[in-house]
């Protein structure tokens, strides 16, 4: 995904992405990314949790305004307040 992000940013559009892996994001070095700790397949949280999905989007927009250096990866932890997970189960986070 970082490769697509780099291409869109190069075309003159400001971009921000959710990172599901710090390791991969650090290698690809997209312009702006936010790692939330949410698991694979759940970049915006869990089914039916519109408020969490909106919260993630608003966090992205806030970071889009605040990040001033290319290649910034912001690390947050949204895993503690996600409410009831979907099919992932309680063992989904480490």
């Amino acid at each position, binding site marked *: 995904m970082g490769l697509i*992000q780099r291409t869109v940013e190069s*075309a003159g559009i400001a971009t*921000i992405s959710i990172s599901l892996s710090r390791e*991969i994001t650090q290698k690809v070095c997209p312009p702006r990314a936010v790692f939330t700790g949410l698991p*694979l*397949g759940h*970049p*915006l949280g869990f089914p039916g949790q519109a408020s969490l999905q909106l919260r993630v*989007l608003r966090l992205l927009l806030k970071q*889009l305004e605040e990040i001033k250096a290319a290649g910034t990866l912001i690390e947050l932890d949204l895993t503690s307040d996600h409410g009831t997970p979907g099919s992932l189960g309680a063992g989904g986070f480490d």
Partner: protein
Amino acid sequence: MNKPLLGFRKTKDRWVARLLTRFPFIFRRWAQRADILRFDQSPWTELSKALNQCRIALITTGGVHLKSQPPFDMLDPAGDPSFREIPAHIPAGELAITHNYYDHSDADKDVNIVFPVERVKDLKGSGDIGSVNDRHYSFMGHITGPHLKTLTAETAPRVAAELKKDAVDIVILTPA
């Protein structure tokens, strides 16, 4: 590839995806060792408007497509570098996910967790953003080998050009 082999591979890929989702430390180890294109620097475009004046589009790599569109190619082990254009007004019920390399059982229940097509409309309604672009885009992740060049030299630039043509100010990218 014959049918039994294809079926075996599909089952194997889905079990691996489930395993990586349930046990993040296995995914982290894979990510640390994965042979991924490396860059030391990043391109940069300054955000030049207030958010409430910006037009936003989404790009996901979650394998989302309209039920009426051809699904992504799951037979090619190097992935599928093509993209699908998703009209922004489409009801979530008309979307499907074809992607064997992550566990999308939750996203099948609510596509917004990988492709927040309804949530960006909420952001427009609340005045957080200026407008939602008429179209979003979807790719499939897990693109490797020869398809990386197709992605970086052909399909991703085509999507970027279309978004530029639409005067999009911000693109939010969501993986899966």
